[in-house]
């Protein structure tokens, strides 16, 4: 049985709701990439739906390389005790981008960073999109992608070398505290030093 929210969703967004299916009792809604944020915002606030709790954000890549990458949002309404799963399919040939939902749920912050880290999906509008589980200079790619071998791309020796070269306190600086916004707050001399590349370089 599909979720009772589906008719409302279809009425509100029409063609943006691509398809609806049920798997193991859970309703799955596929929405288009450009309307995903609107759909989620509507689901969060619309009276009668109120999926106010973001259970999870993740992504799925299928073994069949033709199939698109899916970003999965698990929503829950705490008051109505109902669930819905919203999926956004991303064509692998296009840039992997989707609107961030951090402005709706603060809890999405780290979840989206994790998806970015492990799948390489960019969330536009995310305040601080950095790698979270792997280190900042990790060079091998996105580990949960299917074209990423289980043991990584590099040899063990190279991995060890790179890991040891990664400075454990490299981010122990103001720049690190919040990379996205720190630069503007830096004192002018530090900004100049950064621009000169004394502590690193901007790109």
């Amino acid at each position, binding site marked *: 049985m599909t979720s009772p929210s589906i008719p409302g969703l279809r009425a509100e967004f029409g063609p943006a709701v691509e398809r609806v299916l049920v798997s193991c009792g859970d309703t799955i809604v596929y929405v288009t990439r450009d309307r995903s944020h609107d759909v989620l915002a509507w689901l969060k606030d619309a009276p009668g739906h109120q999926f106010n709790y973001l259970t999870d954000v993740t992504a799925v890549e299928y073994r069949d390389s033709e199939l698109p990458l899916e970003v999965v949002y698990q929503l829950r309404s705490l008051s109505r005790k109902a669930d819905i799963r919203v999926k956004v399919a991303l064509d692998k040939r296009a840039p992997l981008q989707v609107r961030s939902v951090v402005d709706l749920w603060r809890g999405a912050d780290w979840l989206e960073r994790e998806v970015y880290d492990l799948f390489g999906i960019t969330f536009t509008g995310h305040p601080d999109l950095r790698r979270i589980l*792997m*280190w900042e200079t990790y060079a*091998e790619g996105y*580990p949960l992608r299917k074209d*990423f*071998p*289980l*043991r*990584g791309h590099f*040899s*063990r*020796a*190279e*991995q*060890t*070398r*790179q*890991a*040891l*070269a*990664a*400075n*454990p306190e490299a981010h122990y600086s103001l720049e690190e505290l919040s990379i996205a916004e720190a630069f503007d707050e830096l004192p002018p001399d530090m900004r100049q030093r950064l621009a000169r590349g004394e502590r690193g370089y901007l790109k």
Partner: protein
Amino acid sequence: MGLSNPATENRADEVTTVSSISPNWVTTRLDFLTNWARANSLWPMPFGTACCAIEYMATAASRFDIARFGMERQSFSPRQADVLICAGRLPFKLAPVIRRIWDQMPQPKWSISMGACASSGGIFDNYSMVQGIDTIIPVDVYVPGCPPRPEGLMYGIMLLQKKIKGETIADDMLREEKLVGPSGLFLPAERVDELSEPFGNSVHQTRSA
């Protein structure tokens, strides 16, 4: 960190000369005293990361009580620690940290690799995990198990005590540590390939490739 320094000379092929001082009555008596003190006052630096850390905590708790060995002072400052106990898996992201802590510990120092993951990578033969902390720091005692029981860890500690009691101050090579070369390996790459042919070693990607 002492890591970026390339090993200027490769000692792998040298014949190890053990000592410049021959053992005599004085050194053996001194050895006894120093080794007795060191073996019985091993202040651990608990580098607890994962499941093994819980078993390490159980070892420190009432039922097993490593305090009996004089080890209840957990030195979270590496400066005051004698034995680094790496309890749990070690991802590459943590590799420089353990190396740094090891470098910060004053001599004489020892290390125990607790559990399968620390010793060999365990079930985590994947992109993120160091396949054995002995690729990062020297290890004195490996304790197998996933996680090892507290009895296992205590047996490892007792083995380490035994090892310490066999040390001598006459051996000036005892605390010598080889630095990692620019390739990230202790041995030259060709030598690694040669040693690991034709099957590679347990994690066959450790080849220099």
